[in-house]
C-alpha cells in the first residue's frame, strides 16, 4: 500500500534527521503528513478554493491578512474582497451549526459586520479565517439559544444533493454527517473542510484538546459505519 510506504519513509527521514541532530519537519514544527507526501494533500485541493490561504499563519499574513489590515483602515473594496473570499466558508460553518438557511444567512451577515467593525482588534496568532469562523460560531450559538427560546427551530437537510455525484455512498456520507451530534459535526467540519489541527479547534471551541480528539474518534466511528 502506497501510504504505508510513505509512512515508513516518514519514519526513516525522521530517524535520519535525529541522527543529524535536528528534527525534520516544517518550520512550524510539523511533519508533512503522508497524504501530502503521497501527492494527495487535501490542502492543495482546498487551496484552490477561494478564501483559503496556501501559506502563512500569524497576524496579517497571507492574502486574507493583507485584506484585513486594509479593512482595519476602512478600505471598503478590501472588505468586499475579503467577504468574497470568506462568505462561503462562514456560511457553510454556520449551516453546520444552526442547520437552517435563514439563520445561517443571519450568522454570515452579523459575522461580516463584526469583522468590519473589529478588524483593528484582530491580534490573534491564528489565521484570519480561524478568527472569523470563531466570531461566526459565537453568533451561531447566540442565535440558536434565541431560537430555542422562541421555539422556531426547523432542522432541515442542508447538504444539497450534487447532480454530478450520483453515487450512493456520497449520499450516505452526507446523511451521516448531518446526523452527527452537533459537537462532533463542527469538529468534523473544522478538520475535514477547514483543515485545522486539533489544537486550533480546541482553541476556537474553548474545550480541552482531549475532548476534540474524542469527538473526532466518535465522529469517525459513526461516519465509517455509514460508509460500510
Amino acid at each position, binding site marked *: *500500500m502506497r*501510504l*504505508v510506504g510513505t*509512512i*515508513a519513509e*516518514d*519514519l526513516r527521514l*525522521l530517524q535520519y534527521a535525529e541522527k543529524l541532530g535536528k528534527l*525534520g*519537519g516544517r518550520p512550524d*514544527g*510539523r*511533519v508533512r*503528513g*503522508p*497524504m*501530502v507526501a503521497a501527492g494527495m*494533500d*487535501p*490542502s492543495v*485541493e482546498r487551496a484552490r478554493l477561494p478564501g483559503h490561504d496556501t501559506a502563512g499563519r500569524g497576524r496579517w499574513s497571507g492574502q486574507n491578512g493583507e485584506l484585513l489590515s486594509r479593512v482595519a483602515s*476602512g478600505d471598503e473594496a478590501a*472588505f468586499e474582497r475579503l*467577504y468574497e473570499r470568506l*462568505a*462561503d466558508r*462562514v*456560511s*457553510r460553518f454556520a449551516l*453546520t451549526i444552526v442547520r437552517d*438557511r435563514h439563520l445561517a*444567512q443571519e450568522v*454570515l*451577515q452579523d459575522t*461580516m*459586520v463584526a469583522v*468590519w*467593525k473589529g478588524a483593528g482588534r484582530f491580534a490573534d496568532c491564528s489565521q484570519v479565517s480561524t478568527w472569523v469562523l470563531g466570531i461566526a460560531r459565537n453568533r451561531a450559538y447566540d442565535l440558536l439559544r434565541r431560537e430555542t427560546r422562541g421555539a422556531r427551530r426547523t432542522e432541515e437537510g*442542508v*447538504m*444539497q444533493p*450534487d447532480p454530478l*455525484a450520483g453515487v450512493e455512498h*456520497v449520499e450516505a*456520507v*452526507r446523511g451521516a*454527517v448531518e446526523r452527527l451530534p452537533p459537537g462532533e459535526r463542527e469538529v468534523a467540519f473544522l*478538520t*475535514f*473542510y477547514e*483543515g*485545522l*489541527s*486539533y489544537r486550533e479547534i480546541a482553541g476556537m471551541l474553548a474545550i480541552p484538546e482531549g475532548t476534540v480528539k474524542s469527538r*473526532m*474518534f466518535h465522529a*469517525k466511528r459513526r*461516519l*465509517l459505519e455509514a*460508509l460500510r
Partner: protein
Amino acid sequence: MTSCEEVQSVLSWYLRGALESAESRAVIEHLLTCAACREELAQAVRLESECAKAFQAMPPAPATAWATVAARTGGVRLARLDLGSFLAGLSIGMSFQRGRLPVFGQLRLLGRSLPLFETRKGSRND
C-alpha cells in the same frame, strides 16, 4: 501516545500533517507495528475525501447576503429628492451609513452634478 484509541483519534490530523513532530513520530511508530491501526488509516484516508466532498456540497453563501452586509457597513441610499428639470435642478438625498444618516445636496446643471454639501464627516468609529 501508544494506545490504539489514542492513535486512531488523531489519524485525520496526522494525514494532513497537522501534528507536532513528536506526535507524528509516535503515530508512525505505532502504525508500523499495528495492522489494525494501519487498516484504520486506510479508512481515514477514504473518510477524509468523502467528508470534504460532503461539506463542499453544502450550499454557498446566499447572493443576497452581501447587499445586507454592505448596507450595514458601507452605506446605502435611502431617499433622494430631485427638484427642477434635467437641465438644472437640485437633488437632496439621505443615505444610511454605518449607523448614521448622512444627508447630501447636489446642484444639477446640464446633466452634471456638483456636490453642495454632505454631512458624512468623521471616522468609522462605532
